[in-house]
């Protein structure tokens, strides 16, 4: 008999060994990947998200929980892909030109993936033209722009203007985030959403595409 609470707990405690072992046991017991993901792994990340927002836990615990979840999802992926469950959405993310900081971006990516998003990561120091060509050629619901440096957040404005000039602005929703980014800056550059951290980014992404 699988104790599902233990699997949720393994994610909350960031215990990758336990999350993998308990996921294997659940699969051996014939429980579907969708059920394992939806009923025990994701609730663990929801708990972690709430604890992070109230500062009961901090960045390291969030990172470890996301890693524990990721390790378990690797086991579920073959079955999940067979079930042809569509992703929650398609998200393309990158750190803007002139900025090479990626810890925040990587965490947003992890949180989105754990919430069922298909994420394309363009990396760091990405020029506006690159964002533009990816949006033109691909099919994405949301473009996420990250920056840590005060001087580089203006690149977000340039990217949005470049997309507008290319007639691509309406093809995608745009989310912005990073230490120097504020809601008022997001409004000023006409971004569709601002997220103060990775947990909020996952939540706002969901609400953006359900509008």
């Amino acid at each position, binding site marked *: 008999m699988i104790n599902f609470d233990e699997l949720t707990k393994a994610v909350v405690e*960031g215990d990758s060994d336990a999350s993998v072992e308990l996921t294997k046991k659940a699969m051996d017991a014939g429980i579907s990947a969708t059920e394992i993901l939806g009923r025990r792994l994701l609730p663990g990340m929801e708990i972690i998200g709430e604890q992070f927002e109230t*500062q009961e*836990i*901090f*960045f*390291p*615990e969030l*990172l*470890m929980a996301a*890693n524990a979840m990721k390790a378990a999802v690797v086991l579920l992926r073959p079955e999940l892909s067979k079930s042809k469950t569509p992703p929650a959405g398609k998200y393309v993310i990158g750190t803007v*030109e*002139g*900025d*090479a*900081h990626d*810890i925040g971006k*990587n965490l947003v990516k992890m949180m989105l993936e754990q919430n069922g998003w298909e994420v394309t990561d363009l990396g760091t*120091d990405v020029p506006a033209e690159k964002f533009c060509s990816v949006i033109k050629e691909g099919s994405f619901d949301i473009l996420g722009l990250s920056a840590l*440096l005060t*001087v*580089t957040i203006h*690149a977000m404005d340039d990217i949005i203007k470049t997309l507008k000039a290319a007639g691509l602005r309406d093809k995608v929703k745009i989310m912005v985030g990073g*230490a*120097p*980014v*504020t809601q008022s800056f997001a409004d000023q550059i006409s971004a569709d959403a601002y997220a*103060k951290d990775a947990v909020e980014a996952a939540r706002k992404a969901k609400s953006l595409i359900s509008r």
Partner: protein
Amino acid sequence: MSEKGGPDREIGVFQSHRHFWNNLPGIVLCCRLNYYSQDPLRTRIYDENIKGEFTPEMLDLEKLTDDTIRAYQDLPLLNGDVFEVVQFAFVVPWMEAIIGCHLYSLGRGASMVANPADIEPGDLAQHLRYLLDNLDENVWFKKLGDGYQALAEALGAKFPLANTLMRGPGDMVGALLGHENFIERMLKPADNKDFLNELLDLCAKIYIKTAKMQLERSKGFKGGYCNGWGLWAPGLNIRAQEDEAAFVSPKLYNEFLLPYHVQEVDAFDYSTFHMHSGYVMSVYNWRDFSKKSSIKALQVSLDLNGPAVEDLMGTLLEINSEKPLIIGSSTDEQAKAVKEHIPDFPGSVLHYSSSFLK
């Protein structure tokens, strides 16, 4: 001596800085934040869009010295109530470069980042031990020393020199290992505690030697030294910081970082520790830090996305009841809110902002 205010004004400034370190009530100092505009290398990286790996050969000492002299030639000695200080090329992540990380220049980002060194984790302690014993041979250490020597000769008679921006032992180890790797190791202390403590200890010692070298080369100012905020003190005076605090929990901060901050600041007569408002109420254990170390002052930069000034005031007042406090406002709104609360502070305060709000 000063183009603005004259000798009497300067004598008053020295006196107010002495009072500041003693945290006397009613000492309120103000100045403009302007140090970002005074690093010619930072300006050059932006203007010339210098992007990619940044090696020691790219740091042209003669040009940089000339550019720095030009940047300071029209400046008065005083910036509000503090001294205008010269810092050598603070856009360079000096400590990370000295310990072997690769620097990457960000062009329009007007900044640099440090990427992990090409050294196996198992060899890092040996590498750092050798470095500590042979710092004078290190190319970045030499560049930094030569830079201070040149600036002291060119500008030292007019302006005080302060230590450059140096990130702390946690930042150094984080840069060496990669920040996520560092965090994951801290979370598995059974396998990593001794390993990390040795690296942090060696980095703290390299930090101290590097800071002292700069102060020696700068030759001091009027019988003392100035820190990066332009505060003069009659002894070795540095600014210390640890940005890695943004990535750790209070527990990890206490276990891994705090002991080395104590070691670092205890090596100087007057140390001021820089913190961010986003973490000052949670991660930075400034209470224990104040009790366990000889730290003289604390500084809080108000983050754009940090708590509102009103929410921070309890913590700021508590800090100031123990130590002199430097508050850096990022926006005019923050500066205005701080200014309104100035009469509430029980000790000495230096408030800087982009606009001068005396």
